[in-house]
């Protein structure tokens, strides 16, 4: 890991109406580093990664990618920058009007202008890498189970061999075994591509497996970050409550007593 971070976020703020979602996020991700962001539902994890991608315009703060400030870039330049990224969306977000292989090959054909036959071969190879055979490539996304859709989305995210990959809750909603299969795939993809990765999860087993470093988001800020090995002994009451999944503790869910 070199010294200059691949991604550097400083003081990032975003509100929707009066609801403050991000309230000054600071986060660095080194080249080739795999950072996992943990935090409760609705704490703004997806908003954070969409802001990094430029899909959401932040209200305030700085985002640097390879040292270049991107929040002030024009639309066109920002779009060009998206070519460095691969993203696995929380709900897979496969194009339901296209076959599975066309989904995986989409960035190659539409984005890079690659010839269809060649892109198809690459797509089938990527599907193989996530454990799906060529017959799956001919199906429509709606014919697949949730776990298969996530794997297709993973294949699509890595098809163009991006420098930075973002995984938004890759294992949520999957059974533990399929979840672990996905974890292994992510670790392998990141290692093989030498990519920088940001993953979002609530799943501590997944976080421990994928992460070089874990960061926890709470009330719009990163309240702790450190290596997975030391998270058990963080001495941070918020972290302890989250990783042990206790209802009692400093993190108060917004619910009222019956």
């Amino acid at each position: 890991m070199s010294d200059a971070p691949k991604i550097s976020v400083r003081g990032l703020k975003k509100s929707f109406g009066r609801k403050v979602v991000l309230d000054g996020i600071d986060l660095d991700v080194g080249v080739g580093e795999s950072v996992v962001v943990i935090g409760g539902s609705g704490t703004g994890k997806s908003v954070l990664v969409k802001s990094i991608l430029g899909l959401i315009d932040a209200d305030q703060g700085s985002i640097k990618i390879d040292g270049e400030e991107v929040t002030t870039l024009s639309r066109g330049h920002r779009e060009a920058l998206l070519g460095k990224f691969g993203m696995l969306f929380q709900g897979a977000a496969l194009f339901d009007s296209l076959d599975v292989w066309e989904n995986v090959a989409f960035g190659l054909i539409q984005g890079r202008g690659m010839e269809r036959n060649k892109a198809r071969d690459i797509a089938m190879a990527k599907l193989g890498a996530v454990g799906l055979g060529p017959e799956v490539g001919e199906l429509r996304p709606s014919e697949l189970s949730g776990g298969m859709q996530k794997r297709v989305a993973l294949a699509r995210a890595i098809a163009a061999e991006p420098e930075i990959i973002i995984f938004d809750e890759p294992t949520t909603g999957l059974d533990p075994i399929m979840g672990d299969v996905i974890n292994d795939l992510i670790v392998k993809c990141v290692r093989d591509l030498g990519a920088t990765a940001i993953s979002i999860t609530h799943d501590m087993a997944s976080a421990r497996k994928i992460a070089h470093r874990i960061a926890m988001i709470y009330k719009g800020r990163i309240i702790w970050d450190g290596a997975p090995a030391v998270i058990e002994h963080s001495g941070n009451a918020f972290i302890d409550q989250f990783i042990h999944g206790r209802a009692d503790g400093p993190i108060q869910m917004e619910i009222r007593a019956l």
Partner: protein
Amino acid sequence: MLDFLASVGRVFIGFLSASGRLAIFTLTALSHCFRPPFYFRLIGRQMIDIGYYSLPVVGLTAIFTGMVLALQTNTGFSRFGAASATATVVVLSVTRELGPVIAALMVAGRIGAAIAAEIGTMRVTDQIDALSTLSTNPYKYLIVPRIIAGLVTLPILVLVADIIGVFGGYIVSTYKLGFNPATYLHNTANNLTSIDVFSGLIKAGAFGFLIALMGCYHGFHSKGGAQGVGAATTYAVVSASVMILLFDYLLTSVLF
């Protein structure tokens, strides 16, 4: 009283900001119409969706419109002893006005809703964001093909509707009202000028643009899951229908 003024003000500001958003969306979409890459395959597919699959419903409404028009015109004009004008009134009404408007309203219900539902679903399931991350501009990939297809296809549909509508009038006039077929056709052809047809086709192009634009706009800005997509669909159809009638008046007063 102040409350009342405040709520009027809020509605007015809401209207202005909605118009502004629509204007920006329209200009962005138009600017992408002229910059590569162009997705010709998608334009072709949209043209088939919008045009070919709308033929049955547009044809049916056109034939009934022509038929009822012949009946009503004959009734009205007989009172002035001018029943012989039926052929002329039918062909002018159909080509200048009813063909474009009725075809456009039918297509607005069919296609405007489908466009809004499809793009709205893509929005709420992050598929539009996914396009961006795959180096594909959503305006170019989703919006431009639909707008161009709407603009090009509606005039063709309306030309078909014109022919079928006039034919409907001819059937009723000759079989039911006892007009001489040769005289009826002669009157139809002789009093029709090319401007009658072209003005209708120009309107049709504008309506096709509006239908696709409203479907895309409301779909693109839908939020909040299935309910949001449902609302977007309704808005798309209602706003397209109102715009069609509004622009029908404006274009008619400008073109002639």
